[in-house]
């Protein structure tokens, strides 16, 4: 990846928008490029609606190379990580991965991330928008004898959808043997790659980490198949919203703890008993007594989308805010995610959102909005 600096109007040094290894590939495929997380990325190719529905029926290829791929090695890495995340990392077996949360001292969420036990090291994938902050925080808070490498020589692709397994198995046959949240090293055309059965669309699928110089060839090989089309950020966002998955920086932030974020599942049983993660007193207190507010799904009456920033009301009382929202192509209606007092978080609760001065009726809904299609057992 090329990193350049330029002078902005004030004469200060501002980081220029960076170019991902597949930039030319996206443009050649008709991708409409926008700035996201400091990179030029494709928001769409043929259209968000068509791309979204394609992924739910077939397979879509997403370039998520803006995300940070970190490698941690050294003595007692799992124990060290557990001082910063609430998951049971020590119990994570080689070849297995887990969704977790990087916590600030007060228990607020600094990022959500995937942690993989790769045997001799741990791999962590963090959000592109906060990866530099994450790296700084990890370096500052992990013991000096743990080595953190930011692997910028590798890109990351996600192949998502019910046909993803058929398509990927043509290139990497062993991928078909994986179950959800399992990861293996593999080889493709002489390149060392990493494959996991994971993703962020709610569909079955894979994430493939591979050397930058192999990305174009690999993406071409997948998109040459009838099942696969390239998919932009727009559909990635609508797919994850339907899947009830929070987007960091929107649905989660440093003011929010895991219980408020409805991510208590990420606090492992042993950690609940033992604590020892940042903000444990606050978080365990919220687990025991309930948090003051909670992330919920919202079904929106009518057709008008309710978007991030819309205030939520119970009668005339302002009770919360929408953190993500938009039209849901697979639901065929607008949906949203937001924060309400825990007392108003039960599915079926009626609330109202304010859009351009008008009130729109919403109903708290269980998430996901569209069922997950994860493969937890293979047929073989």
């Amino acid at each position: 990846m090329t990193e350049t600096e330029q002078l902005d109007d004030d004469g200060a040094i501002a980081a220029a928008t960076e170019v991902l290894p597949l930039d030319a590939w996206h443009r050649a495929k008709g991708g409409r490029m926008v700035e996201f997380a400091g990179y030029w990325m494709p928001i769409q190719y043929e259209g968000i609606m068509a791309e979204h529905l394609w992924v739910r029926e077939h397979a879509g290829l997403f370039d998520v190379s803006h995300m940070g791929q970190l490698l941690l090695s050294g003595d007692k890495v799992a124990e060290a990580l557990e001082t910063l995340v609430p998951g049971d990392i020590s119990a994570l077996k080689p070849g297995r991965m887990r969704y977790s949360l990087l916590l600030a001292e007060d228990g607020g969420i600094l990022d959500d991330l995937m942690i993989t036990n790769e045997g001799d090291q741990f791999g962590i994938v963090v959000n592109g928008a906060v990866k530099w902050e994450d790296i700084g925080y990890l370096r500052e808070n992990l013991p000096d004898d743990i080595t953190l490498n930011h692997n910028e020589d590798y890109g990351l692709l996600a192949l998502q959808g019910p046909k993803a397994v058929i398509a990927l198995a043509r290139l990497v046959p062993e991928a078909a043997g994986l179950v959800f949240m399992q990861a293996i090293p593999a080889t493709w055309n002489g390149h060392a790659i990493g494959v996991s059965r994971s993703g962020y669309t709610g569909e079955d699928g894979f994430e493939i980490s591979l050397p930058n110089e192999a990305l174009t060839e690999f993406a071409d090989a997948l998109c040459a198949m009838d099942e696969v089309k390239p998919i932009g950020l727009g559909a990635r966002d609508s797919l994850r919203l339907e899947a009830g998955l929070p987007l960091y920086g929107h649905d989660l932030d440093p003011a929010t703890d895991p219980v408020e974020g409805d991510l208590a599942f990420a606090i492992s049983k042993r950690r609940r008993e033992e604590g020892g993660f940042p903000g444990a007193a606050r978080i365990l207190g919220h687990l025991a007594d309930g948090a003051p507010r909670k992330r919920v799904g919202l079904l929106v009456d009518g057709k008008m989308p309710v978007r991030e920033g819309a205030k939520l009301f119970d009668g005339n009382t302002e009770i919360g805010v929408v953190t993500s929202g938009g039209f849901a192509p697979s639901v065929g209606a607008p949906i949203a995610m937001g924060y309400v007092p825990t007392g108003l978080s039960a599915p079926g609760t009626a609330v109202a959102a304010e859009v351009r001065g008008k009130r729109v009726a919403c109903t708290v809904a269980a998430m996901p909005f569209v069922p997950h299609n994860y493969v937890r057992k293979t047929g073989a």
Partner: protein
Amino acid sequence: MPRYYTEEHEWIEVDGDVATVGITDFAQGQLGDIVFVEVPDTGAELSQGGDAAVVESVKAASDVYAPVDGTVTEGNSALEEDPALVNSDPEGEGWFFRLTLSDKSQLDGLMDAAAYKAFCDAL
């Protein structure tokens, strides 16, 4: 009937004192799949450059501005049921609203089709 265009990618077709307003094919292409349109109420007084309507794609909400001053006589109720008309026929069935013109001289400041095409080509 003469048709004029704005730099905000609206079109306005004039028939005597009445005009029909919509967004251009270029605009719908930029917005992508349109899922909701909010048209102004009948009787609303619009002023040139002010908010007139809202068009929402999957991704975002965008304002549509009044190309001229006028009083709204009708919103396109077909867009309630089928907002995708703005994608399929933006400069026809996908019109947004009609208004009576308050100041026809404002039309002189708008572009004709050739000027608008040149404007888009330069973007």
